[in-house]
């Protein structure tokens, strides 16, 4: 198993380098001069410009800049913004908001998604199944921002059940509505995946054996079938956690949550390269780590899987 982990980590290294380099190169290509942007319309003294460009390595070729950035990263230094703030500090404040939002959305996917999937899977071809299938297809088809605004108006404004924007009420109240909207897509996929997988497994021989032994339905489903059916669901849930963190821009915008997505979106417009690269680097690290974790989880769910 440890050899497997070591091999996976080794495989992750070129992926990490490739992804961060790609983002670095794209940010490098952003138009406009960030140093001149600092001063607005005023002309800057050439010596100041020179000093600043030196400080941010702006005159180096792309590869050298990237290497210097990586060097800083290895020492745990994410660099600083063009107005002198520490990037790690800027991101830290935003990070908690996005993490809470993503976690809320993820919990919705996990609990509601699997529950709906089990409900539909056990009643395949009946009304419950049709309802879940139809409802989830609809949720997948409606763009997330339309869902967001609808939820905001109906559940927030008209019914007044939840705050409509901001983080003043803290977790969980402020995060219920955005979490539901952000998680709605994944929730639908989880429900459909669970349903299909469960329905398929219920036909398996081992399920018939378990039934024949006289086990209760709860035990047959919960202990035997569900455990096997959840393998593809766990994969999806794992991979999706990464995309929830990175895909929260729209939801954060609608519900005015000051998270990573908002920060990066603003930073792209302001050409704050270091913040963009820093945030994406962290997202990619999370993505890779979660993927590895999911693959290791397989072994717990399915003892037939060996890591060698």
């Amino acid at each position, binding site marked *: 198993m440890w050899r497997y982990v070591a091999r996976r980590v080794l495989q992750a290294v070129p992926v990490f380098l490739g992804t961060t380099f790609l983002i670095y190169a794209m940010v490098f290509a952003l138009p406009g001069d960030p140093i001149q942007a600092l001063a607005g319309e005023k002309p800057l003294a050439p010596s100041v410009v020179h000093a600043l460009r030196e400080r941010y390595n702006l005159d180096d070729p792309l590869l050298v800049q990237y290497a210097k950035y990586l060097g800083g990263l290895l020492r745990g230094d994410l660099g600083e913004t063009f107005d002198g703030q520490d990037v790690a500090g800027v991101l830290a404040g935003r990070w908690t908001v996005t993490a809470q939002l993503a976690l809320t959305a993820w919990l919705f996917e996990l609990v509601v998604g699997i529950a709906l999937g089990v409900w539909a899977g056990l009643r395949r071809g009946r009304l419950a199944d049709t309802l879940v299938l139809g409802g989830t*297809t609809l949720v997948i088809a409606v763009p997330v921002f339309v869902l967001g605004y609808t939820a905001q108006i109906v559940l927030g404004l008209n019914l007044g059940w939840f705050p409509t924007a901001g983080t003043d009420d803290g977790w969980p109240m402020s995060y219920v509505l955005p979490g539901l909207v952000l998680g709605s897509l994944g929730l639908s996929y989880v429900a459909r995946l669970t349903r299909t997988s469960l329905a398929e497994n219920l036909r398996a021989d081992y399920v018939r054996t378990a039934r024949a032994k006289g086990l209760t339905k709860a035990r047959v489903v919960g202990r035997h079938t569900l455990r096997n059916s959840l393998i593809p669901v766990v994969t999806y849930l794992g991979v999706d956690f990464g995309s929830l963190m990175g895909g929260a821009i729209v939801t954060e915008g609608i519900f005015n949550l000051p998270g990573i997505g908002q920060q990066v979106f603003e930073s792209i417009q302001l050409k704050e390269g270091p913040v963009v690269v820093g945030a994406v680097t962290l997202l990619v690290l999370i993505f890779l780590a979660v993927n590895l974790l999911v693959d290791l989880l397989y072994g717990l769910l399915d003892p037939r899987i060996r890591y060698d």
Partner: protein
Amino acid sequence: MTDKIADPEGAPPEPGAPDAPDAGAVVPGTPAAVAAQAGGPVAGASLWQDAWHDLRRRRLFWASAAILLLVGAMAAAPGLFTDRGKNEDCDPNAAKLPPGGGHLFGTDVSGCDYFAHVVHGARPTLLIGVAVTAFALVIAVVFGMLAGYYGGVLDALIARVTDVFFGLPFVLGATVILVAFPGHGIGAMTLVLVLLGWTTMIRIMRAQVIAVRDADYVQAARLLGASDLRIMRRHILPNAIAPVVVVATLNVGNVIAGEATLDFLGVGLQYPQVSWGLQLNQAQSYFVDHPHLLIFPAVFLSATVLSFLMLGDAVRDALDPRLR
């Protein structure tokens, strides 16, 4: 009844099974008339003909096909639906009118007829969705085939490059590229969406190729002296492509939703382009008092995405009889 079309439960055709004539499907001496009655020529019942036969009986397939045909007509010939051109006959004094009067869908923020806008919005939306999927499909089929067939270093290389692009967060990545190259039209949007969207299909294609590359009929072809290119084209491709085609159909819907999201964020298509995502972008500050600004483009966008998803589902069910 030996006709497997008439009895899908009895003899399910395996997706990815060889295309060779099914020995059980033709009973010597069966009159052609009987075969025709049973639903077409029996000998020609390939996976695709089977699937088509199954599809024809599905209401959901026809419903989504009808919606897509309507939206496709809007995209191809907007003149059939409205006399107004793009951004024409706009009257700022008649802005944000509710539906009714001379304007079926009301008017937008600058007083343009909203119905005409929605009609003209179909073209970029559909064009990008289909073009992105087509390009991504070609990339996935070619490189997935090479990776799966040859394996080894080439496979590892392609897998790592796929991982790199797969790890990029979609909205963030697209935003950075689109801001880096301002003044982009439909072509540049397509390029960006292809760049970030080819990874899912290539993984499926690779897995499919690996599943069939050691099949007996492939070995037979190799022993007969067929070249790699011929084996890949004639033997592996037809048997590996079905699941990729299903994902591609579903993908059109996803691309359309993704494009609308970028338009909505203000980094996608720009005025004077007209698209549903852009309309929703303009609607976001006014929709509480003028809900029609949100509803019409949202309904058309959702119906189109929904149709592609249902179409993909129907095609998958038709191609994969195990879940019937």
